[in-house]
């Protein structure tokens, strides 16, 4: 069943001709999100239905490669093409403001992360998926014994940069972060669980060290900043943790997505949800920069 990568509506009847018709209708109505998707993923030039259908078929075609490769390709195209996403560029050698923008918006992201992963656990009947999510949640949010969670390291990074934990936690998310949270909540609670798994955990590719070998134009940040005194020790601890954890997390999750998407026949749902999640994440990363700018004044 083909599904719209913007509003996640199922095409009726199933097929790329129906999806093309839907996208065309939404574009004719000047819906910003649908127009944006077409501009960024297909063409800036309006296409007729036959050509749009053909382009969509090509875009979603796995071309015999594993689903995880298709996901990585899409992720790299959005965030790590040349030039990389503006937030990634800013994080190469981050200013205090960039890191604080990261802290203030990301604590909201991580709180939604817990809800999204909890939805996946509640909706799957596969023990390996539950165990994977439990491990992920401990790393990201709960912490294990002496090892602080990513969430705690994030707050410590903010404190090391002169903003109290109370202030961080009391700051409401920017609209794009809010929209992301709502979008991910919807995906996790209503889409087939392998699609939710793909939509959430593909985002951990952002800090995946091996992405450069697969065509990314840069790392998430210049690894050199983990040495020396360019950033605080707490910032190093936070970035190092993500750098090490997300690599394993994303790889394991994509293997699970691939397996269960095929087994349950929901590959198109996964593709649509991943693409929607990528759009939400793109805007959310811009919100980190926007928040960061408030610390420059």
């Amino acid at each position, binding site marked *: 069943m083909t599904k719209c990568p913007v509003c996640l509506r199922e095409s009726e009847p199933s097929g790329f001709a129906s999806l093309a018709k839907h996208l065309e209708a939404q574009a004719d109505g*000047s819906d910003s999100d649908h127009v944006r998707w077409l501009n960024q993923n297909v063409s*800036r030039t*309006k296409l007729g239905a036959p050509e749009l259908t053909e382009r969509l078929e090509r875009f979603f075609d796995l071309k015999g490669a594993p689903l995880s490769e298709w996901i990585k390709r899409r992720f790299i195209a959005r965030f790590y093409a040349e*030039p990389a*996403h503006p937030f990634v560029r800013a994080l190469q050698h981050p200013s205090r403001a960039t890191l604080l923008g990261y802290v203030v918006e990301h604590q909201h992201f991580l709180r939604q992360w817990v809800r999204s992963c909890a939805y996946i656990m509640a909706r799957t009947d596969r023990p390996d998926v539950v165990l994977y999510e439990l491990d992920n949640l401990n790393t990201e949010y709960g912490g294990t014994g002496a090892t602080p969670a990513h969430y705690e390291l994030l707050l410590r990074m903010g404190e090391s940069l002169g903003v109290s934990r109370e202030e961080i936690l009391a700051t409401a998310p920017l609209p*794009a972060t809010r929209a992301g949270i709502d979008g991910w909540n919807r995906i996790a609670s209503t889409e087939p669980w392998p699609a939710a798994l793909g939509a959430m955990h593909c985002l951990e590719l952002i800090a995946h060290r091996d992405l450069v070998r697969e065509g990314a134009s840069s790392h998430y940040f210049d690894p050199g900043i983990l040495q020396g005194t360019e950033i605080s020790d707490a910032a190093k601890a936070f970035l190092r943790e993500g750098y090490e954890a997300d690599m394993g997390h994303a790889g394991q999750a994509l293997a699970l997505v691939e397996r269960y998407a095929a087994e349950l026949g929901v590959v198109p749902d996964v593709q649509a949800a991943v693409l929607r999640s990528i759009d939400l994440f*793109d805007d959310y990363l*811009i919100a980190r*920069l926007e928040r960061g700018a408030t610390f420059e004044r």
Partner: protein
Amino acid sequence: MNVNFAGCALCDSTWGNVWAEVEGERRFFCCELCLRQFRNLLARVKLETGWVHLDAVEIVGDRSGRTCTASCGSGTLRVRVAFNAEGTLRQFEPF
């Protein structure tokens, strides 16, 4: 006012169907977000320069960042601009 795009005045897309009067002319935009961005950009250029009208605006780039060259008579302003998801300017750096 001259613009360098035949499609949407901000991004050159030919999808969509928004028509609005900007700088005294009816112009095409692919969506309301681009219209908002374009209006915000022009308003900021006028604010920074004191110009009451613009003769031309040339935009290069995409969502990740654009450069804009605005002119009025013999005056020219070149700026790096970027917007947030709601169409508000988050970067406006003359260069």
